């Protein structure tokens, strides 16, 4: 924690400046998108940062107007697919990381290396084979057709984060629980899970974001509203008429899909409490 240390004033000022620079740099595109989403179509090319007049027109368009069907179904797909992918990957990763952190078994290294290899494998290079395979076995343009490739993105990072986190848990507690009369499963559920929860939540958030933000799989493995997620759907937006620039609607949609991300972070922030394991052992 920055503010817990007593920094010299000069150093503090430097940190503040650096912080402000980073924040401005990161937030500028976001503010710009928000501004864009409130512009009228004619205002889009006005070369001004803020709208001349603030209107809800773009939001109307995607939530109630012409683009409604396209956007709302995409939103439904995105939420559903991302949640399911996150859930599956966190559950699998929890078990895998538990085994990796706790047990000595042959192939432990291999699992971690494989996970890393999968994570650094470029998505674009497997999209084409996957496209063909999915068409042949009927997974093309379905939810599972996206959930499965999303797992390949979320599982490796989940396994890595969780096993790093699990290694820090005072495992003697598990033995204490067993001596207290718990089965291995009870010890896991009643002692380890509560301690691991913050790590699991963090992992879940990261997984969710990865799935939520994916574009390449979303655009390549879907063709209709049955499974197309929001990032892909944005590309299909049209303006109010054929010849209008859809940038306003796209901006509005972008703002809306950002909201769950922000909400999630705010919600889970409280659960990612550091120092939860404090007090387990003496010292």
């Amino acid at each position, binding site marked *: 924690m920055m503010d817990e240390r007593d920094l010299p004033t000069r150093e503090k000022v430097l940190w503040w400046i650096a912080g402000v620079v980073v924040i401005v740099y990161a937030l500028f595109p976001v503010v710009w998108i928000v501004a864009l989403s409130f512009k009228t179509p004619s205002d889009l090319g006005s070369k001004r940062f803020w709208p001349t007049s603030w209107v809800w027109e773009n939001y109307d368009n995607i939530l109630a107007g012409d683009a409604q069907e396209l956007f709302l179904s995409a939103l439904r797909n995105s939420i559903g697919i991302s949640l399911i992918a996150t859930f599956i990957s966190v559950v699998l990763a929890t078990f895998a990381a538990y085994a990796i952190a706790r047990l000595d078994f042959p192939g432990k290294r291999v699992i971690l290396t494989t996970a890393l290899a999968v994570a650094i494998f470029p998505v674009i290079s497997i999209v084409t084979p996957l496209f063909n395979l999915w068409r042949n076995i009927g997974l093309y343009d379905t939810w599972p057709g996206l959930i499965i490739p999303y797992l390949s993105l979320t599982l490796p990072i989940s396994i890595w984060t969780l096993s790093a986190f699990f290694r820090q848990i005072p495992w003697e507690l598990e033995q204490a629980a*067993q001596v*207290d009369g718990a089965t291995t499963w009870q010890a896991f559920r009643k002692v380890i899970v509560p301690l691991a929860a913050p790590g699991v939540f963090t992992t879940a958030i990261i997984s969710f974001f990865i799935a939520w933000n994916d574009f390449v799989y979303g655009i390549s493995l879907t063709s209709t509203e049955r499974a197309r997620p929001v990032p892909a759907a944005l590309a299909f937006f049209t303006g109010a008429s054929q010849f209008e620039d859809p940038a306003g609607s796209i901006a509005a949609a972008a703002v809306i899909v950002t909201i769950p991300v922000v909400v999630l972070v705010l919600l889970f922030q409280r659960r990612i409490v550091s120092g939860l394991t404090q*007090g*387990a052992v003496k010292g």
Partner: protein
Amino acid sequence: MAAITLKNINKQYGDGYRAVKDVNLDIADGEFVILVGPSGCGKSTLLRMIVGLEDITSGELLIGGERVNEKAPRDRNLSMVFQNYALYPHLTVYENIAFPLRLAKAPDSEVDERVRHAAELLELTEHLDRKPANLSGGQRQRVAMGRAIVREAQAFLFDEPLSNLDAKLRGQMRTEISRLQKRLGITTVYVTHDQVEAMTLGDRVAVLRKGVLQQVASPRELYERPVNLFVAGFIGSPPMNFIPATVERDELHTPFGQWRLPEGKRPDLSGHEIVLLGARPEAFEDAAVVSETIRDHGVEFEAHVDVIEWLGNEQYAYVPYEAPDDISAQLADLERELDSEAMRTQLVVSLDATSRIPEGSTAQLWLDLRKVHVFDPASGTNLTVAQSSGNGAAKAPAGDASAAAVDESADGSAQG
């Protein structure tokens, strides 16, 4: 409550290291047994094997007369206080203590009654709603104790529970544990590094060295009749002095003169050229203050006292001397193994508080020869004890653990 019996217990870790070698120990129902030994000698390993957290490589472990080698920890019904407490940080003190009861699916009313009773006993009542992270070390330790005593376990196992407390709190908790154990009358195995805890708490003390049980006996027996050099040096603080001596018929030639041991205390030294004489600091005295009635039991000798530590009720004098090289090397080895810094060969002598020997002077000291032990430097065996205990329940030589475990108070009767 139950007796615990260890039969030829061995432990070999996955990497091939043999941490515990052929340990035999009978712990009677309700008995308080202390396990001591230098760091890394296998105390924790032994305890963890008893509680079931570590597989037993070979041998048999009986609890209440029943073989439990294959049983999971939860089926052994033992409670343990871990060296680092191992409290559940996400639970309140109340729930920490209640944890074993909750697992046993005890009804809420019973849980509440027992937790409050335990909390009262350990003076934790006002902290029941707090989390372990906010407690002091001593309070955490008591919570760990509470969790151990809240259910009716067959035995308590403590792994250096007081090692991280300050001296005052340690003293307090020591009496607390002693009182608690007496009140509950539950079989207890207690691992410690601490001399005072070892000597004061237990009915019997088991001394372990490199995984081999050296001696199991009452604290007094250990102190007065150690079976070998190791036990003699390990028990007692300041430790026993070891003086090299060459044997010439009945005479012992030491750096401090020729001594002749009293009739009943003279072991058969035929075949020994060099022996080590062991004498505790309190076997010495300032010759000037020794009472006439006992003066004849000892010898007087002249020695150079270089440092005096005056402690009020007594004082320690340090007497450096020259010893043959091979002997001093062996003494240094022994000291290293006993976790004490390798000092030069010197006597530590306890003197009466009234003694007026000045520092840096040559003084006349007296040694009570009745309290001198004779050790074989090669095997480490205490020849004095080996002789006087006869051939029946022979006190074992250093290497033979199975015989060392035999002790008069270990009847090992198994009760249900």
